[in-house]
């Protein structure tokens, strides 16, 4: 709490409170407004994280055959759980797999989202209302349900593509074959994410004042040149943001591969890092290893997305701190 008093000195010295008459007093109301958020944050986020960090440093020591009360005791393990996680070939391959998956999902999803957003924004494209609604619709379908739907469409007996190819005498590879299952899962993520990102980018495009294009049009710029030279450079911050959100979502992929597993033998229980955490915690009952892996995954996500927030924070609050 010492930091609070320090803050008080600097806050009263530097910042004007909104009400001039209250300059000298510490307002009580904002703390009351913050109580529910802070209490829930502590209970649902801070304590679970700290407890998991604690568990990641613990392990169970088994005495004798491990039978009877007192034969299993929890002891400090130092960093050995982290050593196990980081040297576990399952973990390393799940990380590499998910990075590869991200390299497929993010460029394809954002590329399509940008293309559709530019088309929606173009003066020469028709049927925009219908397309915008339909392309956005998958956002309302949760990953579990969309995986279920695509999972059936991937089955050769159901797939319309296999059916169509057979009519012309081609045998299509099965989407859930070992080499292709990553793309099958990536397709589900792209399908679910394109519309939302399209709307974010389209909204950014609409905020550009149109007189910027008028001048370019008079100078004889084509729609394509306007998109490439004016529109895309202006919405780069939105593209960065959507990429980082895409990265966060990619790292925590869980629902899609878990739902597809009953339909194929080519998705292992440690396909993604989060699936491996689930397996360690609930199938192997090794909550210590699961805790260490959780911490590693959370830190990796945090580090990856940190740069993004610095970017957004500075932009978003410029008006408030004027």
């Amino acid at each position, binding site marked *: 709490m010492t930091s609070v008093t320090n803050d008080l000195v600097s806050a009263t010295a530097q910042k004007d409170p909104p*009400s001039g008459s209250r300059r000298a007093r510490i307002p009580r109301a904002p703390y009351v407004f913050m109580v529910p958020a802070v209490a829930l*944050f502590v209970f649902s*986020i801070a304590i679970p994280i700290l407890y998991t960090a604690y568990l990641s440093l613990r392990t169970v020591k088994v005495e004798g055959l491990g039978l009877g009360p007192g034969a299993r005791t929890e002891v400090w393990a130092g960093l050995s759980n982290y050593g196990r996680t980081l040297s576990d070939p399952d973990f390393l391959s799940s990380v590499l797999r998910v990075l590869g998956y991200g390299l497929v999902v993010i460029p394809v999803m954002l590329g399509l989202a940008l293309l559709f957003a530019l*088309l929606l924004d173009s003066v020469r494209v028709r049927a925009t209302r*219908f397309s915008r609604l339909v392309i956005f619709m998958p956002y309302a379908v949760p990953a579990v349900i969309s995986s279920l739907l695509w999972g059936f469409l991937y089955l050769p007996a159901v797939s319309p593509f296999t059916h169509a190819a057979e009519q012309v005498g081609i045998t299509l590879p099965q989407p859930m074959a070992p080499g292709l299952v990553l793309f099958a899962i990536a397709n589900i993520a792209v399908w679910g994410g394109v519309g939302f990102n399209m709307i974010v980018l389209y909204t950014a495009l609409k905020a550009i004042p149109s007189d910027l294009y008028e001048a370019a049009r008079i100078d004889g710029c084509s729609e394509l040149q306007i998109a490439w030279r004016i529109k895309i450079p202006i919405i780069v911050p939105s593209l960065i*943001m959507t990429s980082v959100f895409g990265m966060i979502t990619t790292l925590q992929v869980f629902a899609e591969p878990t739902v597809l597993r*009953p339909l194929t033998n080519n998705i292992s229980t440690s396909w993604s890092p*989060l699936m491996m955490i689930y397996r360690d915690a609930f199938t192997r009952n090794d909550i210590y290893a699961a805790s260490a892996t959780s911490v590693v995954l959370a830190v990796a*996500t945090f580090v990856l997305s940190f740069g993004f927030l610095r970017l957004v924070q500075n932009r978003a*609050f410029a008006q408030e701190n004027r």
Partner: protein
Amino acid sequence: MKTAQQKPSLVGTGVLLVGAVYCLIPVVWVLMASSKTSSELFTTFTYAPGTSLFSNIADLTAYRDGLFWRWMANTGLYAGAGAALSTLVSAMAGYAMAKYRFPGRGALFNILLAGVLVPGVILAVPQYLLFAELGMTNTYWAVLLPSIISPYGIYLARIYVSASVPDEVIEAARTDGAQDWRIFRSVVLPMMVPGLVTVFLFQFVAIWNNFLLPYVMLGDDKLFPVTVGLSGLLNQGAQQPAMYSLVIPGALLSILPLLALFLLLQRFWQVDLAAGAVKS
């Protein structure tokens, strides 16, 4: 501005329509497949309608005394009540941080922002470990409580308040003698409605999409949301394909309410908030 002189672009319109068709592939399929018996599912053409839509829905309703509808109600509770409470909590915190200068404000905001970077799904297993220690797993609270806090919602609410509620309005209310809570409830909250609809929808989708949390927290299938329930049925389908004629209409029925909610609320929905921009 679309003007009549501009020639429509066939290529552009075509590409956009191909995108729309891609997005419709699974949706049209689930409409058709919901009406098929489990044998028709694997024998008739994918996009041909079947013969038993209503009997499938009746079977689904009869399954274990209407368990499916209980899952739907649970989903409504988790996502609806969770998002509503989350929106209120976010509005209060966002307002406090946007409109008051108080000691600790910066520190609180930075800690909350750090929470945005640790996404909810990664927290599910840590939350389970804590709730298991407290003996609170396998209850409604186990899913509802962690769903209420949304650092991202607080962040959006703060952006929205600072851009759309002028200081002068609050000052005027204060001069009239209104207390802090009354200012918030009768002056600030009504002005925040468009922003709060956005926070509500984001949080609704986040809760409804968080499969891992209920999946680890709940053992009793009477407490399941529809996502966990259907994925369990799909698992059983690997042994008894008859389950598929329950799973598929179940998937259709589960997405209809959300599609309706989105169509209804989309006009109020400000996606640009997601990009951190507010038009003033």
